[in-house]
């Protein structure tokens, strides 16, 4: 994407690439956790794009795939800890769907480490920031999502 990599500057003014991460965060836990990270002024990449969803169980693999094909280098899905789902079982179902997605991506030659499912509670601002930082490190290692350059996508 042409708008990618606008943040950060290397010496001499050249733009430094930073991976773009789309996060689907459940409104009850992970989104609130992200909010806490913000008000606590915890540092993580400005290339993180949060999308608030009602439940991690509402995140169809189609959304994750869409995010990757539309320019994300990695995707985080954040949900309530097992047992804590506001809708009782949404996160358990997300876990199974995510397992399918990971196997599928790997099978089609897309590194499954680009996508991550994490349980982050409303009180875990630190875990949220830490998770995004870890993801950024991982994605820098993996490099930009390679299919983004494919014309025939």
């Amino acid at each position: 994407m042409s708008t990618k990599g606008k943040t950060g500057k290397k010496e001499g003014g050249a733009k430094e690439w930073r991976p773009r991460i789309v996060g689907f965060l459940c409104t009850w836990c992970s989104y609130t956790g992200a909010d806490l990270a913000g008000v606590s002024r915890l540092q993580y990449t400005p290339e993180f794009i949060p999308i608030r969803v009602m439940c991690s169980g509402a995140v169809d693999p189609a959304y994750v795939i869409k995010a990757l094909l539309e320019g994300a280098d990695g995707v985080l899905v954040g949900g309530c800890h097992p047992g804590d789902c506001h809708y009782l079982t949404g996160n358990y179902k997300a876990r199974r769907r995510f397992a399918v997605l990971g196997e599928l991506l790997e099978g089609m030659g897309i590194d499954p480490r680009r996508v991550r499912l994490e349980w982050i509670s409303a009180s875990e601002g630190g875990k949220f920031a830490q998770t995004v930082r870890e993801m950024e490190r991982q994605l820098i290692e993996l490099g930009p999502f390679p299919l983004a350059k494919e014309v025939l996508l």
Partner: protein
Amino acid sequence: MDYAFRWELKGGEDRQAAARRLLHEALRRGAVGAVLYPAEARGGAGVAYALATRPEHLGSAVPLARAVPQFGPQNLVRATEPGGGPIAVAAVLKPCEVRAVVELVKLKQVDPSRVVLLSPDCPGTVELKDYSRTRDESEEAFPIRLACRICRRPVGGDAVDVSLGTLGARHDELLLVARTDRGRAFCESAGAQAIEVPPARAEAVARALAAGEAAYASQEAASRERYAKGGAFVPALSTCIKCMNCMNVCPVCYCKECLFYTDAFNPTAGSLADKAKRRGVLRVPTETVQFHLTRMAHVMTACVMCGQCESACPTGIPLVEMYAGINKRIQDLFGYESGRSVEEAPPLTEFREDEDFT
């Protein structure tokens, strides 16, 4: 427990004719009210499913046809829909189609109480367009579909009511193997002769299944080499014209309202231009990779590897080859096998609290 019945070949008929006579008898004696079966076009030019309620129409029935007409399981959905009349349907479907029916039963699309599932031991099928070759050419010359060459379950499993058995059968018989009480009742009311399950049957079935497993395993390895490691995925999809035939013929793809027919996947002029501007270049029609990946994510736990998607693809995208690298692996995550049993819940509808897939 399996019950075997002998259906003897009479007066120089072949197994195809004997199987036809079985359907005829079942209808004539009222074992079922309708039969869904492959029917051959005049002169053997082609084959399609037909639903007969009167035995005199069964003259063109080819229950052991070496091709799979599309939409067998889907037609069973229609035939058993509420309000369709209380007739029992005997459906002659290939083992893969029966597996699809099992998935559809679990997804509450087929009412199994009104169906007797008959399934021939399947030696593999050809594309529909090649059907006439199965009459004119020797078996060795048939171009068997890849899905069949790597089929792990060429013999009907426990969900089949009656196998129309050729494996382990004598040359002068069709061996009916009933796996359910309903199947047993069907055989009895059609007038088949009860016998002991011949010992040769189990051995021949085990051999066929082992050969299928080996063929699949070897294709799985090749597919992973090509797609998981080889980066062939996007190039292989490059010829997709997004006709969505693969989706429309898929027996386990059943949503009445489909994501891919919503506005989200059908760009307006403005959004198309926008997107092209943003990306710099845009393949049109758009979202073909998105479509195929999403489809795989949605159906792979239920996919029975029948290969109808690939057969329906006008540009020859190797979908079966792609799926072979992930189908079993994805189902193995949950200890699940699509089509094995109506007792096993579809993996994406249930969960265990303590499981971990990482």
